[in-house]
């Protein structure tokens, strides 16, 4: 913190708001300090991987929530609600409610089975080291897909705070800070940091909303200014002091914005010039596919699942999920409010593109207060920026821990050097953290033209078609074989990935910058989409066919290879489902060690 005063003076000279810089610096400093502090207390390999399995329900729930609320949640949702209206509400609702599926079908059994990571579960359930390798690939795969939008958020926010700073510098600085933190503190440090960052994000989104609503009118009041008939409007207090501003031509019309099946879900049909009565069924299909991807994807995110192992027992795992749903549910009420206020009072953002457009509404909206109340507005902007920092830093560190865990624990500890000592593995954890951090920064630098929320949605769609079917079926159907599980997971995941990549390529072909030239060969794809809007929707939102396909393949292939069902399947199922008080887990481990000899 010694460097802060000169940095602030410099900032003021360059026309940068010192409050924003101060809040952002404090966020980074506290994160790093907590990481260093806890580095002293995490000594054993168990501490590094799953925090000694002794994190309390309150801490763990805050930490999961902190890790889950990423740049897409903090910045992306408000921007998306402002840009497209009602249809964007499905994102926060499904992000929050996907946890219910996790709670109902997966959380308890997975915790009872007891393993450090999802690959541990995959190997333990099917007695197959090969399947572990496949599962590890998906941890890294979904992980890297999910880090890219976080890096984009970091680069965009830093470029907003320091106008003129190159995008890649922001990515590199944030990446380096988090990587150092994870390498030094391990997961125990990260649990504390994550938990604190949840409350920071909650504060940073709710305080500006309350202040803005006090000045510019509440949630319902602002919605009533949009597309309501005069009769409906007079029922409410009229906001005379702050009337709504004129919308630019680029903004979607009020009626389409506030109604279901608006600009997002009807885009493909509009491109094909379909009449409204033909477009509506396609919009309904789009909505359902989006819901499936988000709900099932939540239940299959590897960096969230690994945290269930930090609960002391299955009862605590269930209580944790309950609290996570409350914590993130409360949070997700706020970003749409900012989106609605943004539509009414900052419509000029509709004219900006990408990071200069509606995506930065969370950071930009508090400046309205600054125009009227001076310093209070600067403080609010500073709080919002601190929240954005907390958002991409916490999600990135969570991803880094789970990917590093996969490399150090699975690739090194199980495949390359099974006879390595705990000290060697801990050293490997640090090296792997630095390596993966570097790759993430490199990838982050490449994705500047892509949209944050869209990339996150793709990571969810891939998780929904790979890990979700694997976990759900493995827990509840004893007839599953390794071949069935692998076939379903690989085909579902890879097809979802291909569909996402095709959509990205055709979108990038429309870009007017250098990316447009690079992806020009994919331009004919857009003409094809215009001819076949249904195929476009199935490609943009693949979950509606990839998830049933993955589950179907799992059933068919498992039936065909039924004699490969693990011999001790009844014991495995008992460990998954019997209450922990019966002590079956220890019995299982003893039998397993006696039988397999490892």
């Amino acid at each position, binding site marked *: 913190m010694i460097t802060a005063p000169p940095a602030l003076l410099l900032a003021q000279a360059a026309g940068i708001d010192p409050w924003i810089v101060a809040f952002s610096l404090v966020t980074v400093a506290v994160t790093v300090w907590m990481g260093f502090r806890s580095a002293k207390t995490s000594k054993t390999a168990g501490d590094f991987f799953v925090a000694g399995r002794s994190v309390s329900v309150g801490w763990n729930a805050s930490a999961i929530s902190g890790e889950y609320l990423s740049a897409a949640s903090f910045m992306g949702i408000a921007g998306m609600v402002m840009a497209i209206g009602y249809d964007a509400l499905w994102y926060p609702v499904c992000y929050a409610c996907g946890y219910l599926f996790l709670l*109902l079908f997966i959380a308890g059994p997975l915790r009872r089975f007891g393993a450090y990571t999802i690959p541990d579960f995959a190997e333990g359930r099917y007695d197959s080291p090969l399947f572990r390798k496949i599962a590890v690939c998906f941890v890294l795969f979904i992980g890297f897909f999910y880090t890219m939008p976080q890096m984009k958020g970091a680069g965009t926010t830093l470029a907003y705070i320091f106008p003129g700073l190159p995008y890649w510098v922001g990515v590199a600085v944030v990446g380096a800070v988090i990587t150092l933190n994870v390498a030094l503190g391990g997961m125990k440090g990260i649990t504390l940091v994550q938990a604190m960052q949840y409350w920071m994000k909650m504060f940073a989104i709710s305080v500006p909303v309350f202040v803005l609503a006090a000045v510019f009118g509440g949630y319902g009041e602002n919605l009533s200014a949009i597309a309501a008939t005069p009769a409906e409007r007079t029922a409410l207090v009229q906001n005379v002091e702050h009337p709504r501003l004129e919308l630019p031509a680029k903004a979607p019309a009020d009626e389409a914005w506030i*109604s279901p099946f608006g600009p997002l879900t009807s885009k493909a049909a509009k491109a094909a010039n379909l009449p409204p009565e033909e477009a509506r069924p396609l919009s309904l299909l789009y909505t359902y596919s989006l819901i499936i991807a988000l709900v099932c994807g939540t239940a299959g995110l590897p960096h969230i699942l690994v945290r269930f192992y930090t609960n002391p027992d299955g009862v605590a795992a*269930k209580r944790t999920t309950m609290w996570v749903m409350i914590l993130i*549910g409360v949070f997700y009420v706020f970003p749409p409010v900012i989106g609605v206020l943004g539509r009414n009072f900052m419509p000029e953002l509709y004219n900006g593109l990408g990071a200069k457009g509606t995506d930065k509404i969370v950071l930009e909206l508090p400046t309205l207060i600054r125009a009227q109340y001076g310093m209070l507005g600067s403080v609010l902007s500073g709080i919002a920026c601190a929240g954005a920092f907390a958002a991409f830093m916490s999600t990135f560190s969570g991803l880094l821990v789970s990917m590093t865990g996969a490399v150090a624990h699975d690739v090194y500890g199980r495949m390359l050097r099974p006879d390595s000592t705990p000290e060697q593995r801990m050293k490997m954890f640090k090296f792997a953290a630095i390596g993966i951090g570097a790759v993430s920064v490199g990838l982050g630098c490449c994705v500047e033209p892509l949209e944050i929320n869209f990339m996150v949605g793709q990571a969810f769609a891939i998780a929904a078609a790979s890990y979700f079917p694997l976990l759900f079926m493995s827990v509840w159907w004893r007839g599953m074989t390794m071949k069935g599980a692998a076939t379903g997971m690989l085909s579902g995941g890879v097809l979802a990935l291909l569909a996402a990549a095709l959509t990205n390529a055709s979108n990038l072909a429309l870009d007017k910058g250098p990316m447009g030239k690079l992806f020009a060969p994919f331009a004919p794809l857009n003409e094809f989409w215009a001819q076949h809007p249904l195929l476009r929707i199935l490609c943009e939102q693949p979950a509606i066919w990839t998830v049933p396909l993955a589950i179907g393949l799992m059933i068919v292939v498992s039936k065909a290879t039924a004699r490969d069902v693990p011999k001790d399947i009844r014991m495995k199922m008992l460990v998954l*489902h019997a*209450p922990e008080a019966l002590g079956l887990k220890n019995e299982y481990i003893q039998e397993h060690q006696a039988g397999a000899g490892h």
Partner: protein
Amino acid sequence: MPQPQTAPDPIDKIHSESFLRDLMRRQLVLSTGCALAFLVALLGLPLVNYLAPAMMARRVGGFTLSWLVLGVLFFPYVWAISFHFIRRSLALEASEVEEARRR
């Protein structure tokens, strides 16, 4: 391999086919019931939006009905389902433990 059903030993009872089948069935019934309550609302809302757009566009305190349901009321509904599930599920586990020990 089926365990001998006549064994009075509690350990063997736990390992029997019927105990596991009962255990999984009861848990699955509870989970599926809660999931249905959730899915009816989640998958039903787009359908109601589709079939009765005029009703869902009615204003309630400034919100359209559809916005109020999705943006605000959905969260407490899901909390209620999960609260119910956790209570029932913990009670179920307690009764399973007792049953397994008694026999």
